[in-house]
């Protein structure tokens, strides 16, 4: 039973965090202009942080770190060149899986 109540507490906190801005700016109260602008300018900043986040194991070093950085760089260059999301993801992930096994 305790397992499930603990899970529900975790669920409640997580949902509340996602809902917080909606609670603060509910009904007629609208977002102030600076916050609205922040919301619109944040995506590229968040995406850059998420790239760092998904490569965070790099700080442990080793061949997995090298594989991650090489595959990330190749993905970025390939995408800059061909602009095909599908190709970039397949090639990047394939290269990473290959490097993990070769390095």
């Amino acid at each position, binding site marked *: 039973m305790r397992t499930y109540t603990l899970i529900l507490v975790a669920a409640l*906190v997580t949902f509340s965090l996602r809902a917080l801005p*909606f609670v603060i700016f509910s009904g007629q109260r609208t977002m102030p202009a600076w916050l609205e602008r922040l*919301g619109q300018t944040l995506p590229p900043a968040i995406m850059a942080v998420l790239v760092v986040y998904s490569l965070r194991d790099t700080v442990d070093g080793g061949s997995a770190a090298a594989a991650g950085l090489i595959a990330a760089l190749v993905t970025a260059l390939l*995408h800059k060149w061909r602009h095909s999301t599908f190709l970039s993801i397949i090639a990047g992930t394939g290269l990473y899986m290959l490097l993990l096994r070769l390095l």
Partner: protein
Amino acid sequence: MAFKTAFQKSLPIFFSYLFVGMAYGLMMNEAGYAWYTALFTSFTVYSGAFQFVLITFLSGGASYLTVALTALLMNSRQTFYSLTFLEEFKAMGRRKLYMIHTMSDETYAVNCTLDREDPARKDIMFLVALLSRLYWMGASVIGAVLGQVLPFDLTGIDFCMTALFITILVDQWDKRKSHFEPIAGGLVGVLCLLVFGKQSFILPALLLVSGLILLRGQPRKTGKEGSA
């Protein structure tokens, strides 16, 4: 048509969630929990990295306070995501609560790639959210039930999420005039990773980069809301 677009957009999430979700189910199974407990967690919490931490809390007998505080620290980044889609979710009626609950790193990223002019935009967002959550719940169950007997080695397939984030970043870079935000995000992210370590750097990084963007601001308009 909306479904086709949503399904295509959700494919990187599919592969990532399939692998990571199965790993989650497998670990729950190894910690002694049944598939329905894994499913219950994926259904109610729906938060990748935190669910892994939660396993050790559940089996280690952690307090409610520990669980609540860790959820707060690990998931408060998602408060930032809501800022981008506040007005749109508000206009989604009954589906609003579902959109809020299902906001993850991955659905946020995919939502950022959707065409602003597409009339089916809101339906696509909803379907991406629905599909992604189904992938995650399904993978948790598969992992918990048969993770140990799976014959192929999929190690590394979760890189498709990294690759998705990179492609979105490159597209945003090409589309927007200002490159201050991605550069600041990258530098601050690496700096915080080195200072705070990989477990806890994402929240300070998001706070710091938001602060930088606000400080830099836009050319100040005069006579508008008298903040100093």
